[in-house]
């Protein structure tokens, strides 16, 4: 396992492009040894470019890639000592499961007995030990993905395991099982893992640290909890969480903030240069209440979406749409006119789209 450092790395696919339009804008990142990371974002956000730079498939236009402090920027894939699980399962179709797992070690000229012991250990963990003699081509897609993972795990010294949307071609019913298996295995072997996906669900379930990307930039890095509770920008608030976080524009006069003429009781310190101040609040924390009180605002119920265990209320407050997620058992407020409560501890200030941290 190794620590991976990305120092001022940026990439443009065509030379001479203005930096604003690079596929990956120069950034600095550290992937600590033995931790799991997820790169998440919509297609075209630069996550695959970043992964390809780590694997050596793409040589960055600028900056350095360090593995445990050693500069590997110029090294080809083969010399980087990484492992990768691809979107579409890749196995050596002429070989058995055993030979597939043993292949990286055979390439490194390990002794036979040592290979044998290692392959059995990994196969055991992957639950493939009873199928070692079978041809790998006959396995299902999810088992093939496990083999891919296993080819990385057999190597003691692998610097990092890269996973590129590994669940894409897996049946929906099997996705959860494979996800579970991958989690168990990383728990057991503790490799450095970098997992690329567009699916927040996968990213948050799998990784200790999630990196949200957009337009070639890393917009926020943090634990799943941080991304949920304190998204650093309106984009992260939109991208993480379902339904997306609510953002309502508020009026400000001398340090006080108001929504539709009613005071928002918060103590925010926001720079005066800001043009637009928004209050951000997760739909989970918005409540329909019956009694007026601090931070309650009148609204009009525009629609109810039944998701099963929860309902999503769509409420118009001060001319803006606000979603509230309520447990089914709480029912739906009677009538169109509703009162909405925004808990003080859960509302966050956003100045021109960026979270303003309050001390």
């Amino acid at each position, binding site marked *: 396992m190794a620590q991976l450092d990305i120092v001022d790395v940026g990439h443009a696919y065509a030379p001479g492009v203005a930096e604003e339009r690079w596929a990956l804008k120069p950034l600095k990142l550290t992937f600590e040894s033995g931790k799991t990371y997820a790169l998440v974002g919509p297609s075209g956000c630069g996550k695959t470019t970043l992964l390809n730079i780590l694997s050596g498939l793409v040589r960055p236009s600028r900056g350095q890639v360090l593995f445990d402090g050693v500069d590997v920027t110029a090294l080809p894939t083969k010399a980087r000592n990484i492992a990768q699980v691809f979107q579409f399962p890749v196995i*050596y179709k002429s070989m058995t499961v055993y030979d597939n797992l043993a292949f990286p070690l055979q390439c490194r000229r390990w002794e036979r007995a040592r290979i044998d012991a290692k392959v059995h250990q990994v196969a055991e963990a992957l639950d493939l030990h009873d199928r070692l003699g079978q041809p790998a081509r006959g396995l299902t897609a999810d088992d093939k993905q496990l083999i891919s993972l296993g*080819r990385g795990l057999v190597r003691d010294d692998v610097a990092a395991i890269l996973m590129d949307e590994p669940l894409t071609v897996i049946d929906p019913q099997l996705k959860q099982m494979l996800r579970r298996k991958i989690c168990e295995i990383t728990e057991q072997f503790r490799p450095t893992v970098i997992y690329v996906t567009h699916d927040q669900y996968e990213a948050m379930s799998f990784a200790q640290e999630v990196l949200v990307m957009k337009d070639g930039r890393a917009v926020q890095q943090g634990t799943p909890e941080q991304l949920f509770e304190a998204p650093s920008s309106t984009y992260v608030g939109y991208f993480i969480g379902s339904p997306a976080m609510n953002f309502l524009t508020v009026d400000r006069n001398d340090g006080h903030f108001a929504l539709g003429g009613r005071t928002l009781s918060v103590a925010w310190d926001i720079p005066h240069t800001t043009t637009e101040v928004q209050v951000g609040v997760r739909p989970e924390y918005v409540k329909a209440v019956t009694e007026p009180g601090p931070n309650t605002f009148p609204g009009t119920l525009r629609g109810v979406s039944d998701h099963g265990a929860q309902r999503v209320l769509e409420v118009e407050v001060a001319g803006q749409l606000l979603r509230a997620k309520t447990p089914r058992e709480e029912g739906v407020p009677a009538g169109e006119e509703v009162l909405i409560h925004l808990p003080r501890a859960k509302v966050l200030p956003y100045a021109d789209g960026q979270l303003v941290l309050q001390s």
Partner: protein
Amino acid sequence: MDGLRRHKSMFLLPGLLTLFLIIIFPLLFTIRVSFSGWNVSNPYMDFIAGANYTAVLHDSRFWASITRLILLAGGTVLIQYVIGFGMALLVWRDVRGRRFWRVLFLVPMMTTPVVMAAIWQTIFHESLGPANDLLELLGLTRIPWLTESGPALVALMTVEVWQWTPFMFLLLLAGLLSLPKEPFMAAAIDGAGTWRTFWKVTFPLMAPVSVAAVVIRLIEASKLSDSVYVLTSGGPGSSTETPGYYLYIQGLRDQQTGYSGAMSLLYLVLMSVTLTVVAALLTRAFKLKGDS
């Protein structure tokens, strides 16, 4: 799908019937004529039962030509496959002047075999052709290319390899170009070298295309006769004669129609059976069934 039952036949039948009608008469005619004693002095459709077949079975010239064809076809197709695959691999990826090489390597298969065989005949001319000129340049002795049996076979094989390696090249290059790149990435990641990558990744991935290409070439090669006609006329003696060419002599030059009919059918059956068996064996050897 209701209502489609009528339509589907309208799509299929014109082509199927056309081919069937073109093929069925010759086939029936050949079967019938093979039981007749039709020849140049007796051009009648009489009935002599299986006499022609008995004669063919004892015709050692026919059987020699069959053996020769099998060796020629097997040998040239193998050489074509090895060279074609090798060249496809060389111009597959980073190579300078890629398009130029690809076009050049395709050209021979686009040319008319008999026409080029005529040119090859001048090349192999013992005193005036460049083949011996080249040998002398390399310090070797001249070879009577087309007048001695061994060299004549080599010449014939050279022409076949020249003419049809491009066909292998075309199919194999198309196959290589359609391969996904992930398996190669995976092999690089696992630390496999060039040799191992070829045998464990490229070759297995190319197995279906390879089998298809080899079988197609074997089918075409089993009909070898045009170039023989132009290049050596089966000679010297009958040392480069293929069944196709021998049939031409019997049936068309000497007009032994009945006899050649029996020979045709035997040849056709032998080739169909052999090719079917070879195709099945190759398919099984590379476990091509039931896998995508």
